[in-house]
């Protein structure tokens, strides 16, 4: 029997604490697989956020640093400037990267920091019980927008990868999803490219991953995939939004 699909050494054996059907687990696995395939595990420093993934230092097989909420990209900057020979990534939710951490994300991109940010967008704040996120959709009901996000008083969702395409130091910006096997394969390709951009020393790389939160969306895991496909995807730019200049890349 030949292995077609086996567990990666890029992840530890710890069982994930995430809710049933939460796509954090898929994204963790893609990162772990890439760390293994690209022989990076021993040279990697990952930076964990605050949020549901705030415990992810237990799941990645590499050295990990737990950052304060929103500051993972600053922590990663400090780590990478201290050890430029290491592969440094951040793993953040939508609040961590686009609300409290928005300044750090954009500034690091502007500086062209040689780090890779993985941004998990599930349009809600999961860990704290389902409050509105900067990426929550207009009309979306959350714990802090119980009547639905009202654009008049609460504004509009941020499309962070789209914003970053305008930042010169951001060399690779991709927006992917994990709502189907095909999407998952595309997501892994984008992540691999983002990792390679760092290894080639080209600049800041950023991959946004549309994800589900069945618990706080109030649907079951399968319905959550459908909500992602039908409701979220139309609102966020998807694909490789910016690629390195060597590939003819300018902001899309």
């Amino acid at each position, binding site marked *: 029997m030949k*292995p077609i*699909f086996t567990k990666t050494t890029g992840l530890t054996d710890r069982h994930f604490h995430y809710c049933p*059907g939460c796509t*954090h687990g*898929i994204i963790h696995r893609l990162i772990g697989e890439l760390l293994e395939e690209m022989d990076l595990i021993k040279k990697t420093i990952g930076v964990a956020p605050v949020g549901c993934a705030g415990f992810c230092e237990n799941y990645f097989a590499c050295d990990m640093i737990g950052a304060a909420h929103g500051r993972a990209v600053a922590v990663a900057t400090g780590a990478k400037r201290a050890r430029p020979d290491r592969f440094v990534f951040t793993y953040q939710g939508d609040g961590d990267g686009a609300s409290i951490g928005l300044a750090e994300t954009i500034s690091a991109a502007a500086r062209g920091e040689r780090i890779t940010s993985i941004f998990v967008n599930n349009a809600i704040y999961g860990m704290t019980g389902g409050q509105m996120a900067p990426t929550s959709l207009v009309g979306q009901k959350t714990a802090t927008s119980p009547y639905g996000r009202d654009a008049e008083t609460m504004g509009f969702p941020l499309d962070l990868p789209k914003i970053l395409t305008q930042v010169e130091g951001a060399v690779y910006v991709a927006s992917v999803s994990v709502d189907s096997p095909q999407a998952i394969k595309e997501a892994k390709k984008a992540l691999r490219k983002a990792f390679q951009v760092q290894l080639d020393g080209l600049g800041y790389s950023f991959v946004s991953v549309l994800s589900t939160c069945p618990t706080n969306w109030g649907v079951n895991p399968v319905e959550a995939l459908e909500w992602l496909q039908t409701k979220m995807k139309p609102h966020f730019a998807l694909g490789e939004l910016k690629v390195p200049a060597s590939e003819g890349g300018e902001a899309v």
Partner: protein
Amino acid sequence: MKNLVKINAERCKSCGLCVHICPKKILSLGEVANSKGFYTVEMKDQTQCIACAFCALICPDLVLEVYSEQKGE
């Protein structure tokens, strides 16, 4: 073609994503609970499996591994 899906039931959370995604509809949530109380996924008919690994791809909890006699390196 002989294919095998190995199930690590202790990691399963009954999310049902693999059941939903399997193109041959040969996975289902069974009636045996793991130590956390989740009724874990079971393979109904291994002979129908085409080792597409969609189940393993969509599983968020590293429950599934896929092996094949003919596919793979």
